[in-house]
């Protein structure tokens, strides 16, 4: 009698423990993949946003006597939108800040690689740029 009781009682416990272990292993296996995927997607988006901002800055400089480029300073995206050089204000998906680099290029604090490097899915649409 005790034999049957211990068998049925233990089975439920083992099943719950096994399922919990499987869920834990699945999280341990899939979470790093998810993080990698998200990082890659955010990096690609950020690079494309920086390309757009760079084109807007180039357009602004081409149409104004005073340059907007201030190396090391954050880029005023709202100002570029108000003046019509940027269609919409977009921020880095990884909460990075867009700043001007030493040579006037747009850099992101979260994604330090330059716009020209790394693979992209497709070329961004060409805009009027004098750079």
């Amino acid at each position: 009698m005790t034999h049957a009781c211990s068998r049925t009682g233990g089975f439920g416990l083992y099943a719950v423990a096994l399922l919990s272990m499987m869920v834990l292993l699945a999280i341990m296996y899939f979470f790093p993949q998810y993080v990698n995927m998200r990082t890659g997607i955010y990096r690609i988006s950020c690079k494309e946003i920086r390309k757009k901002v760079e084109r807007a800055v180039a357009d602004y400089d081409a149409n104004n006597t005073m340059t907007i480029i201030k190396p090391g300073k954050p880029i005023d995206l709202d100002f570029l939108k108000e003046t019509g050089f940027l269609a919409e204000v977009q921020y880095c998906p990884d909460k990075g800040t867009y700043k001007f680099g030493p040579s006037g290029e747009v850099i992101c604090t979260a994604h330090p690689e330059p716009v020209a490097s790394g693979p992209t899915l497709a070329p961004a649409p060409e805009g009027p740029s004098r750079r």
Partner: protein
Amino acid sequence: MAKHRRRTFLIKTGLQLRYMGVIVSTMLLVAFGVGWIIYSTSWNRIVGTPDLTIDKLAEIFDAVNAILIKWVAIFIVVIASLSVFVSHKIAGPVYRFERSAKVIASGDLTQRVRLRHGDELRELQDAFNTMTDALCEMVKKDREVIQRLVVAGNRLNETLKKNKQDPQAIEAVARDLYGIIEELRKVTKGFKIDPDPARAAGDSEADGTPS
């Protein structure tokens, strides 16, 4: 304790197949639901985004994640609620069996298990009630034999009171008593109370009652 090995996996085929069906269909439902949500949300976002460029990729990714989290939470709540109802079909009968077994153990053999419509373990209910009926029948027979013992005892008492010491009358009463004892033995012989059959047989022989 000897290790128990399962050789027959489908012991209660109907019950096991029903629960396999419930688990598999739930899994399929969740897999299809989550798959469809990812598929439709992603493509609707892609199609519905004006001037789609690669910089919108993160927005689409975040939107799909947000919708997926919302729906997974809904699925968890729905499946948890459904599992309460499904498990109740087993837990309810088990609770009733436990309660009935306690009542019967306390001596009330009028107790019967009555399951509700749609409950599982209906075959166990029939077997349990048949067992209780059999117990009732045995106790009834015991009582009849006890009643006959009382009558025989009274006869013996009267014979002794007459003080005639008629050996034939006393022998007749003694014969009756042994006959009743034999009947009582037959009634209780149906019960197996010792897991060791050799020991049980030894006990029976050591009884010392002439047959």
